[in-house]
């Protein structure tokens, strides 16, 4: 069982590769079709953000366990410009990312845990976990 794997995001094709990786790992962990689609959508949004705003970066997928819980951790990192106003980006209906239910608030809703670390001018790392129920 492969426990860690990652995809560099340099072109739009890599978004699909990251999705594929995420879906495979999600299947392996035992997530159902709907949760697979949710995890994949979250990865899609994160990869798309990297592609659109940072130019390049990386999506890492890790199968994780905590006590007797199993889950999937997605880490999206880039050395892009960083996010100057995290509060605003996490606000609903903030429409730069294409409206309804999209963007980082969407990722937060699709996953169970969500963490964002950003340094203006140095880059951003977003970690999001989905737990198997």
């Amino acid at each position, binding site marked *: 069982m492969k426990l860690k794997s990652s995809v560099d995001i340099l072109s739009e094709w890599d978004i699909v590769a990251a999705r594929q990786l995420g879906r495979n790992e999600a299947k392996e962990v035992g997530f159902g079709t709907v949760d697979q689609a*949710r995890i994949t959508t979250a990865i899609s949004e994160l990869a798309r953000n990297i592609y659109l705003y940072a130019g390049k970066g990386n999506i890492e997928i890790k199968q994780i366990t905590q006590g007797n819980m199993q889950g999937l951790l997605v880490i999206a990192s880039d050395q892009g410009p960083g996010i100057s106003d995290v509060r605003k980006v996490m606000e609903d209906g903030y429409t730069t990312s294409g409206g309804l239910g999209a963007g980082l608030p969407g990722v937060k809703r699709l996953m169970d845990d969500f963490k964002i670390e950003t340094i203006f001018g140095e880059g951003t790392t977003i970690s999001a976990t989905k737990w198997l129920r």
Partner: protein
Amino acid sequence: MPQEFKRQYKEILEQYTLRQTEHNLYEGQNFSRQLIQKNISPEEVISIHKASLEEIIPNLSADVSHSFDLLIEVMIRYGLALKEHQTLIKKQENFKMEMELASNVQQTLLKTKIPNMFGLDIGMISVPAQEMNGDYAYFLNDETSVGVAVADVIGKGIPAALCMSMIKYGMDSLTGAKTDPIVVLDVINRIVEKSVSDSMFISMFYGTYNTTRSEFTYASAGHEPPLFYCAKSERFTELQAKGLLLGVVPNVKYEQHSVVFDKEDFVVMMTDGVTECRSKEGFIEQQTVMDIIESVRDESAQAMVEYVYKKLEELQDFEQRDDFTLVIFKKI
């Protein structure tokens, strides 16, 4: 996937595939009410549908099965929008509670007492269009004089309400009811000009009634002219007084005029929320407002203002577009 919903849905779907009756669709509709209440997302509904169909039609073609996976993928965003909606509804509810609280705070802050004067009957009503009032009426009085300020911030809602508090503190800093109207306007104008940005303007009327001389002295800062009703001639005249809106420039020359009241004469001070009432057919004519007022001239001043408000509310189809303030001074 919530198993109980799956079981129920499968039953409805099974019935419906057997016989396409309205009754089955009605059950589906009622069921969807439950689904939404239990936060079942649309992508989960598709997933339930797929699983049910696979059980009902055992030899379902792989193509059909796969097609649902694409549909689930597409629905994920609809599910997100729905969740966003639930967050927003909660926010909206919190905001409503906050506005109610704010409106209470404002009422306490701006409260003014209608004075009891010998020989003068006073009525006052002030109703905000939204939760917060951008109109303001304030009374000052001593033994023989009663002063009244009626003001309107251009605009309504929260920004207007914030500005209004300024007028109150300005009025509090005045010494007494006898102060000349042009002095009052000058003091308030300086405060407003200093504290408020260039895009905020306030119109204000100030009048003071002397019960000994039955004389009403007044000045206006770009405010709606009051209507003076002469009981003898049974006619209204506008009390005109030139003067710039508050907050435009620090030094303004205001005009001061007076009028002497006979018994039963009264003056109606108001904001443009009264004169600019609109019905479906357009603005309500000044003559209409005058007719309404005149029809209750024998009532108490308070009964008069309340009646006028009720009548205009009706004429507007209960859609109040602006803050509404009306003050009547009637010699008795």
